């Protein structure tokens, strides 16, 4: 467990040097600082990703919080799979990565993706070219395929089940060039 923490800490330090060099040594980051990144502004999920950094009701994030959120995107190392299971799960485990994505859908944080929440994300991604009915039918079909307990919403467990064949590790990890 100590070794895995050290590896995580080192990875964070790589980011640490870059961040401090490039950002005028702010200790607190606000929403507006993220919104100034042009490529984030045109990303359909830009606002949601920014929200993921801030805790409930908070308007600023410190460096530790920033790193905790970014740590979800650390690649899963092979030698960590054999670490002891008693310690807290590392932030970049498959389950935590999926949880991060789940929170992008689940706005009201009730641990369920409702039809409305799914519609909102769909609308953000596909833009204005598709009619509401078409969008609604896509959302219904998606929920139908995923829903197992019949509550017309997708819970986290159902989310994980639908995505069990997807290579989450590759899609939700960022590697450094050295």
């Amino acid at each position: 467990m100590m070794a895995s923490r050290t590896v995580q800490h080192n990875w964070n330090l790589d980011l640490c040097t870059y961040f401090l060099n490039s950002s005028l040594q702010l200790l607190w980051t606000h929403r507006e600082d993220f919104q100034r990144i042009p490529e984030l502004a045109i990303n359909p999920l830009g606002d949601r990703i920014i929200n993921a950094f801030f805790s409930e009701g908070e308007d600023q994030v410190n460096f530790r919080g920033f790193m905790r959120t970014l740590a979800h995107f650390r690649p899963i190392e092979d030698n960590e799979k054999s670490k002891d299971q008693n310690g807290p799960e590392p932030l970049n485990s498959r389950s935590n990565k999926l949880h991060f994505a789940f929170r992008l859908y689940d706005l009201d944080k009730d641990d369920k993706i409702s039809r409305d929440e799914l519609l909102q994300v769909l609308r953000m991604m596909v833009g204005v070219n598709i009619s509401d009915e078409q969008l609604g039918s896509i959302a219904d079909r998606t929920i139908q395929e995923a829903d197992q307990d019949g509550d017309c919403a997708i819970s986290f467990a159902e989310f994980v089940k639908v995505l069990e064949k997807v290579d989450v590790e590759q899609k939700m990890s960022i590697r450094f060039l050295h």
Partner: protein
Amino acid sequence: MFLLLPFDSLVVNLLGISITVLFTLLLVFIIVPAIFGVSFGIRKVYMKTLLKIFQWATLRIERGAKEKNHPLYKPYVNGIIAKEPTSLEEEIKEIRRSGSGKALDAPEFELSDIFYFCRKGIETIMDDEVTKRFSAEELESWNLLSRTNYNFHYISLRLTVLWGLGVLIRYCFLLPLRIALAFTGISLLVTGTTVVGYLPNGRCKEFLSKHVHLMCYRICVRALTAIITYHDRENRPRNGGICVANHTSPIDVIILASDGYYAMVGQVHGGLMGVIQRAMVKACPHVWFERSEVKDRHLVAKRLTEHVQDKSKLPILIFPEGTCINNTSVMMFKKGSFEIGATVYPVAIKYDPQFGDAFWNSSKYGMVTYLLRMMTSWAIVCSVWYLPPMTRQCDEDAVQFANRVKSAIARQGGLVDLLWSKEGEGERYIQGGATETLQQNDCRQP
């Protein structure tokens, strides 16, 4: 002891003669042309010679590196993280196209589609295109300045000798010469403008003031060995207008002001800058703000508007980026100067980094270190394009106007236009704005 005496006076005589000769040469070849605005073309010949030497040096390094299998240059260009080759805009278009065209097929959507956007978003937070613009550019060829090639290993004797010779020339010959010129230029400016300030207001004063300013800026240009090429000089800014340009270094002011007579805008400084500012304002109405006034945007806008509306006053020179950029791209312009409602004369400045990198990384170097670096480079080579004037159209607001001017400058200077539009939730990713139509449909109050 007797033998020493005549020898001593001989040395002293020689020294005296050589200094006199040096200063005469200085006067004839540098200052006199500066006064009259003509040029002997010495700097261009100097530039061509240097280019030939650099080519040889670069080829020699490449050959040497291949022989020894050394890595040539610091791999900086691609950033710190591995990015996917697909671009965000293309993916967005891909997703949105699948809905509109084919009416019968329902567009495909998976819950995992958001992974791509999520990851792209986090990638840009870690390493975005914008922050990269604030570090100096890395060069492809070596210009015998060790500051631009961090991996300089010992390759050959000839190259090292050449580099050593270069250091000697730059620090022992060029640097004192340039410092002397700069000193001359600045003191002439201060005394000249103070003297002109005592004259009564009128055509004579204006004429003299203009020529004093131009002369001193030209001397300063030669003090930096700046080789400037001006394009489209018929579009130069006129009275009652605002001249906007992209900003790479404090030298931009000297470069533009040596070709035209502008009213400067800026904050009052202390020290030498303060002395220069106070002297300049005696001869011609520049706009200097106190520190406290700078924060008050309305006051600033009001003073600038007053200045601009007086048609007899000079065009104002403004750098809307607000800070120094490394001359590979143009950042978002601050909209303040575009709200005033005057004609805007855009100017694009592009430096050639081969002879000396003019970018001022203010977080890395202070002003004195920066000037020292400038004066020990080979030369500052740049091109200035004067673009046709633009005015704000009826249906644009200040921000759109600013972006239009910015695109024109970026396109002309061959710089990347870092521009995005917030309209329509990122549906338009603009590369280069609308054509600058010269419809005189402007909406200023008469």
